[in-house]
């Protein structure tokens, strides 16, 4: 029996190892890990709980339905309000207006969609801004169109010009 001592030693070591393994496993693995697969299931709820910032048109419609209707009637019907304005979360807090809504009214912003590019589908209305301004008689120096007042002729919610003749009669783009 004097040779069984080492077996007991190994036995104790094994028990210590198992206890340690279980202890650290419980300690290190997050509670919801492995419920649905090898990931932390709680993270799904965490991802879902992030607050959306863009309200889409239904958010805008709550207060500005007449503007939305106006937009829907014209060729910009599919342009999201938040493209030229800002995300809803910068304007509304807890369903109440909290901050003023910003809007981008520069010609640069119009040109972002309507600049002539060879990669754009031909059916999409595009202009060479310099050529276009010359054609409608707007004085503009150089190729910097950040200050061009496209709004003189085009109302962004319904951008088709009301009267082609008044457009062609000439407007000074630099006069404000």
């Amino acid at each position: 029996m004097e040779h069984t001592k080492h077996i007991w030693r190994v036995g104790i070591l094994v028990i210590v190892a198992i206890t340690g393994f279980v202890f650290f496993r419980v300690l290190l693995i997050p509670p919801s890990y492995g419920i649905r697969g090898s990931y932390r299931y709680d993270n799904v709820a965490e991802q879902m709980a992030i607050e959306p910032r863009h309200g889409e048109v239904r958010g805008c419609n709550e207060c500005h339905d007449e503007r939305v209707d106006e937009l829907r009637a014209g060729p910009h019907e599919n342009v999201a309000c938040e493209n030229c304005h800002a995300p809803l979360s910068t304007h509304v807090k807890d369903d109440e207006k909290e901050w003023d809504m910003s809007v981008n009214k520069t010609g640069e912003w119009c040109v972002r969609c309507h600049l002539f590019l060879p990669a754009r589908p031909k059916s999409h209305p595009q202009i060479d801004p310099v050529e276009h301004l010359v054609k409608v008689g707007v004085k503009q120096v150089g190729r910097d169109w950040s200050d061009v007042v496209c709004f003189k002729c085009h109302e962004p919610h319904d951008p088709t010009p009301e009267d082609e003749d008044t457009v062609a009669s000439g407007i000074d783009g630099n006069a404000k």
Partner: protein
Amino acid sequence: MSKLKNITEITEEARQEAEREGRRDFLFRLAGLTIGGVFVNILGSGLLRGEAEGADDVTPTPASGRQGQVTNLPPKGYNWEDHLYAYLIDTTKCIGCGMCVRACKNENDVPDGFYRTWIEEYLIATNDHGDFDVQVFSPNGGLFGFQASQSPLAVSKGFFVPKMCNHCDNTPCTQVCPVGASYQTKDGVVLVDKEQCIGCGYCIQACPYGSRFLDPVSHTASKCTWCYHRITRGLRPACVAACPTGTRVFGDLKRTDDPVLVALSKTRVQVLQPNLLTKPRCYYVGLDLEVR
């Protein structure tokens, strides 16, 4: 030295006997350890099951005490078994305005210089030999739109291709994650758990579409989530909501009247790099030979 001497003195037969004895012992010990390991595993997972209350509840709800910064819980009763999301990109409609890239950045706080979705501009000219000269541009991922190109090519055709995470069914990226931080939800979205991610970057290398990046702020892998916080509330992803031309369409394949499902059944669609068998759930219309 004496030990060595003894060993050399043992006869061949005796040494074989000793070896056999040792092997038997070793095998017994191995069996013991294996059984022990299995026991520990069962015990461990059993403990976990006991801890996680509501494991059978299909709606994901945060375990108590671990909510942290969670302020507004998603609508209760969302069942991810009822949805299978898919995405359609009609490149023939894309005007390259970059509103999607901008909306994505605003919605998800995407850091400067990194993109969860981006737009590529392809300019192609046929050369003398009937081959194609191709130039691809993506200035700032299309975040500020595109300017008139300075390409020297006599462009014969051009088009824009929006790109993003393809949310593959057979994902290479989640398979390589060593800590279980990247996973696939039951409704078909590939997500990254920021808390678990160690930022090793294996998934970034594994993605054949270049859709992942290492977030310079959190130092964890980041990617498109199809705006999981929006789609589970019934909203569209920010990029789809921002698209003025209908290039980007978001759908749920478990709905019979779904626009993506209709497009899949009625039109000819492609996926990026189908040879890799990743089974993307992001479908394209009007891709060209040069697009990978």
